């Protein structure tokens, strides 16, 4: 399906083929920057709740492609606070922009926006529901580290660790990863296990899912360790929380004996589930992961703004066409 004009609301809307197009284009844009590709286009960033990381990454991606940005990063001084409906805010902003990136505290807000907007909408996070560009950047990071993900030559063993019950990022990443040749290992404290519907989804795609609550054992048994935060409010008993938090803390010593190519990812911000001494090891990859948000978001913007063929080949910019004619 062509990307031009499409909304990016949920990872469920992206097929395996779509994901491959996004990853390949991100790689191309990283290798060959296109400073004029989106010249003359305007991105609206509608952040009804703050998320500096996501917003800055989108704005940087747009500006590196020659586009410009308008928007707000805090809804407290917008018409939304004066009682304007989300639908009306979108109809208004829509008139000024070629693409909308939005973040909203309520689940389903981006879907609703996509139904009223006449320009494409990218979901930058809707409550606890979806954050598809985070998933794309996670997948891109993994595909850069392990090209076997896309060629399928050998299974990639990915361990999800931490709060797998409520963790939006792991659910979405599981959905995306299970389109590819992977084996999944779930490492969660009791009560925070991966919900059965995601295990069933993986199995329906022929992906085996194993469980092991012992983080130390899991560290030695995977190619990618995807860590997430444990949130205290998920635990009824604070004593239990502190006990479990201690057993889900990764430090440099725990990495001794891990596979040489093991890489650790984390959606950030980390609190203390990854000790800072891990940062110095070859296994730490979470800062590189965050940086991959730029090419991935550039790829998504280029695709939905119609600057590529459906296969993800960049269309020539006007400047390049001019060069071609004079040569």
């Amino acid at each position, binding site marked *: 399906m062509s990307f031009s004009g499409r909304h990016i609301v949920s990872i469920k809307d992206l097929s395996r083929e779509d994901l491959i197009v996004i990853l390949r284009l991100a790689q191309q844009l990283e290798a060959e920057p296109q400073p004029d590709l989106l010249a003359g286009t305007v991105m609206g960033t509608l952040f009804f709740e703050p998320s500096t990381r996501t917003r800055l990454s989108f704005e940087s991606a747009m500006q590196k492609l020659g586009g410009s940005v308008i928007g707000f990063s805090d809804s407290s001084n917008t018409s939304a606070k004066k009682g304007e409906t989300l639908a009306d805010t979108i109809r208004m902003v829509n008139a000024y922009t070629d693409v909308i990136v939005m973040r909203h*505290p*309520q689940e*389903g807000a981006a879907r*609703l926006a996509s139904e009223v907007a006449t320009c494409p909408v990218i979901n930058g996070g809707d409550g606890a*529901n979806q954050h598809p560009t985070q998933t794309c950047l996670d997948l891109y990071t993994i595909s850069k580290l392990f090209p076997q993900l896309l060629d399928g030559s050998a299974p990639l063993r990915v361990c999800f660790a931490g709060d797998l019950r409520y963790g939006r990022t792991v659910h979405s990443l599981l959905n995306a990863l299970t389109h590819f040749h992977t084996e999944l290992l779930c490492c969660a404290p009791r009560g925070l296990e991966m919900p059965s519907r995601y295990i069933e989804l993986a199995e329906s795609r022929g992906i085996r899912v194993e469980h092991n609550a012992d983080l130390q054992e899991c560290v030695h048994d995977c190619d990618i360790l995807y860590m997430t935060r444990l949130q205290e409010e998920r635990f009824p008993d604070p004593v239990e929380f502190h006990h479990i938090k201690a057993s889900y803390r990764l430090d440099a010593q725990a990495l001794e004996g891990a596979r040489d190519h093991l890489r650790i990812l984390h959606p950030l911000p980390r609190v203390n589930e990854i000790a800072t001494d891990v940062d110095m090891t070859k296994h730490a990859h979470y800062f590189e992961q965050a940086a991959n948000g730029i090419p991935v978001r550039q790829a998504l913007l280029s695709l939905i703004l119609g600057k590529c063929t459906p296969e993800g080949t960049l269309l020539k910019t006007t400047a390049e066409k001019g060069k071609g004619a004079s040569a």
Partner: protein
Amino acid sequence: MSHRVRQVEAIANGTVIDHLPPSTTLKIASVLADHSDQVFIGNNLKSSDTSKPGKGVIKIANKELSTNVLSRIALLAPEATINIIRDYKVTAKGPISVPRSFTGIALCGNHNCITNHDECTTRFHVINPKPLTVCCAYCERNFPADELTIL
């Protein structure tokens, strides 16, 4: 068998909704009938095989149900059967048809769903027919259909 008596009054013309789970009968009666309707309700009715759980039956006189009402019944009681009665005879009988999606007939059970805060018609897709489970098209959460609040 000598003891068999009609547990709910017969109607000359109208609709009989049968095989309702007892927990849904009263709720369904309130969505499909209004004050001017002649309605007969039976609940926890036992068949001759008393080991089986009871069921609910609603008979509504001189009324055939709209698609909108039928889909609300389907959401609450997907295994119900619908009989159309004309002149005391069953002229049409069959299981209720469960649509693939439900629009504007139920509230989303997720309090933080945008549909509970903004101007928006709810929409649910069926993801599992038995037990009937639906997914909110907005917040993407799954709900057992009988847990939703019907509008």
